[in-house]
């Protein structure tokens, strides 16, 4: 009897302690709006040493090295404001930020991509940096790119480097087929791409391949070349219209597959899994994010002669601007100092090093000029760096439910379409119906 009473009391005591621990945490969760003053004015030099945390998903070795050098140079010049680098893997960035924001322990400076900012901005987790951006930096970046990081009228992420989907060609195979490599003033249209891909196809070898295992980003971003904007209306309650413009690119891809100009197996491969086929000459041309250039440089056979060609033209050469960004957490106690570090990161030489390391396009003109000087015309880098002018605002990135729609609706629907399990009309209907469902 005594033992039972003791055990019951112990169980009740444990429950009470647990409840006490959990109830004491209510204040720090939620919007995170309370802890930091709104950023304003220039950074001030603190009288006591402070530490800023900077989380980054820099992945490719040259980029990791360039990022570390930026942090080291900042720490050397600012001994009272130490920046501590926190490396995160790309696929965990969002999950980690969700817990960190909710727990009030977000890093001061956050490296993320613009597509991920909408939700965090809407929940008030990211500081409004509009008034902190120096005029020189503002004028150095295209308006369309600034628009891509503006949520509810506030700029919550400073754009750094951006990606386009471009075509990599095997110049030897093109030459053998009598096909001239296009130039910046005479780019290919999608009709040209299809015709030349057909010309380059024979037997088991295909003229074109595109790793569309995760099809949504590629098809939507590159599909902006046909004016497919998908989302319209108020940022808070956007509506989706999937019309001819939005379905043009998937339609053309399917036509190329049916015409045997494009490798059908490539639609089930990732963007980098098509590279072995490109190296072996099985695919004369591949479409991929331009970051792939770093891998081709290190892994392709020395005998492979390749180049990047200008962005393929639809009704325009536009592609969605979805740059990587640097944000400041609203919870940060030192937003001005955090922004000062971002300004340091964004200086032309440093941003150029980051862009070259990741084989991505620096969004500032000054950094782009430095990268262009360094890379010259090697492997078509001159035309790709110029394509920064074709980066256009993608309205779907502003929708807070876009990420959920992308993973739950768009990706499976596009995959089914590319496997010929559903037709184009059904794809369009399912995409828009899915949008309504996700937003209801």
């Amino acid at each position, binding site marked *: 009897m005594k033992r*039972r009473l003791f*055990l019951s009391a112990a169980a009740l005591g444990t429950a009470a302690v647990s409840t006490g*621990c*959990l109830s*004491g*945490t209510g204040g*720090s*969760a939620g919007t995170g709006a309370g802890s930091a003053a709104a950023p304003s004015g220039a950074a001030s030099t603190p009288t006591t040493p402070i530490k800023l*945390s900077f989380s980054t*998903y820099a*992945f*490719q*070795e040259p980029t*990791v090295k360039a990022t570390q050098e930026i942090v080291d140079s900042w720490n050397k010049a600012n001994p009272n404001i130490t920046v*501590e*680098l*926190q*490396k*995160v*893997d*790309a*696929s*965990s960035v969002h*999950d*980690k930020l*969700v*817990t*960190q924001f*909710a*727990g*009030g*322990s977000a*890093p001061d400076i956050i490296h993320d991509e613009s597509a991920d900012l909408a939700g965090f901005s809407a929940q008030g987790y990211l500081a409004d940096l509009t008034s902190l951006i120096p005029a020189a930096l503002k004028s150095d970046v295209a308006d369309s790119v600034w628009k891509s990081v503006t949520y509810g009228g506030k700029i919550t992420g400073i754009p750094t480097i951006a990606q386009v989907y471009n075509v990599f060609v095997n110049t030897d195979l093109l030459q053998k087929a009598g096909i001239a490599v296009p130039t910046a003033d005479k780019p290919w249209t999608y009709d040209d791409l299809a015709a030349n891909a057909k010309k380059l196809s024979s037997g088991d070898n295909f003229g074109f391949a595109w*790793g569309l*295992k*995760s099809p949504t*980003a590629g098809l939507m971003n590159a599909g902006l070349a046909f004016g497919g904007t998908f989302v319209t209306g108020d940022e808070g309650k956007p509506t989706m219209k999937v019309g001819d413009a939005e379905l043009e690119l998937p339609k053309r891809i399917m036509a190329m597959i049916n015409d045997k100009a494009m490798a059908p197996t490539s639609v089930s491969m*990732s*963007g*980098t*899994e098509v*590279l*072995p*086929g490109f*190296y*072996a000459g*099985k695919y004369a041309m591949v479409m991929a*994010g331009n*970051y792939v250039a770093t*891998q081709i440089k*290190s*892994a*392709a*056979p020395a005998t492979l002669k390749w180049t990047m060609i200008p962005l393929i033209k639809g009704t325009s050469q536009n592609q969605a601007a979805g740059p990587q960004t640097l944000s400041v957490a609203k919870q940060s106690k030192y937003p001005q100092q955090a922004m000062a570090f971002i300004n340091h990161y964004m200086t032309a030489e440093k941003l150029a090093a980051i862009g070259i390391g990741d084989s991505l396009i620096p969004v500032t003109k000054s950094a782009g000029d430095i990268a262009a000087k360094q890379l010259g015309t090697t492997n078509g880098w001159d035309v790709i760096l110029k394509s920064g002018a074709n980066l256009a605002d993608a309205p779907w990135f502003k929708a807070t439910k876009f990420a959920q729609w992308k993973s739950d609706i768009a990706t499976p629907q596009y995959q089914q379409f590319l496997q010929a399990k559903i037709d184009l009309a059904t794809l369009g209907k399912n995409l828009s119906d899915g949008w309504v469902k996700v937003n209801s």
Partner: protein
Amino acid sequence: MKPKPYVRVLQYIALGFFICFLGFPLLWLVTTAFKSPRELTTINPTLFPTMPTVDNFFAAMTHNNLGQALLNSLIVAVSTAVVTTVLALPASYALARNRSRLRTVTIGWILVSQVFPFILIVIPLFIVLKNLGLLNSLQGLVLVYVVWSLPFTLWMLLGYVSAIPSDLEEAAATDGAGKLATLIQIIFPLLVPGLVATTMFAFISAWNEFFFALVVIQSPELQTAPLLLARYVGAEGNVQLGPLAATALITTLPGLLIFAVIQRKLISGMMAGAVKG
């Protein structure tokens, strides 16, 4: 009854296929670790590297501080295994020998805790650890792992303890042995195989765990091996296959070595343990 010769042959053939099925991924991991980036992207992959290289191991050890990550994982896994076992052992004995309502409630708690999706508790867990000052610390991670693996460890040990007849304790009591002496000299030695099995389970669970470590650990110097492995996978399916394989191989070795040493005790422990009502 002795099986017929042809049956024995078929059994060995089936066993051979099973070993190949289990062992082939490990063999592929080992050979991938020694391949250069060029060799990893050939269209016709080869099992064995044509030009073996150790560059992937150098990259793993020098660029990402693998040594520190392995040490962190070892500290966390050993601490988790020890603390979990120390807590679970007396608790399992009490539950096995006392048929009360508490036993039913505890077993129910164990079962419910195993089906609960841990992603639902990760945010409150983060907040609790932050308030306790245990965020971004190996101690906080050990605490999380102990709490997470304790129910199943308790469940496993409960089975092993139940398998030991209570007659042995009664016989010891008849001979004048006290409760403590009975536990130390008779019960615990019989529990060694079970203890080894449950300790290894707790060790491996903590060694391989990723998500809680991702949430709790912020500083690079406190990262565990699974967090380091994840950093070789970039966006859009971009993978540094060679360094990933090298790191994965090095990370797998401690578990493999420990299993090789204690496998007899582990197998007998798994064979002996069975949940008995």
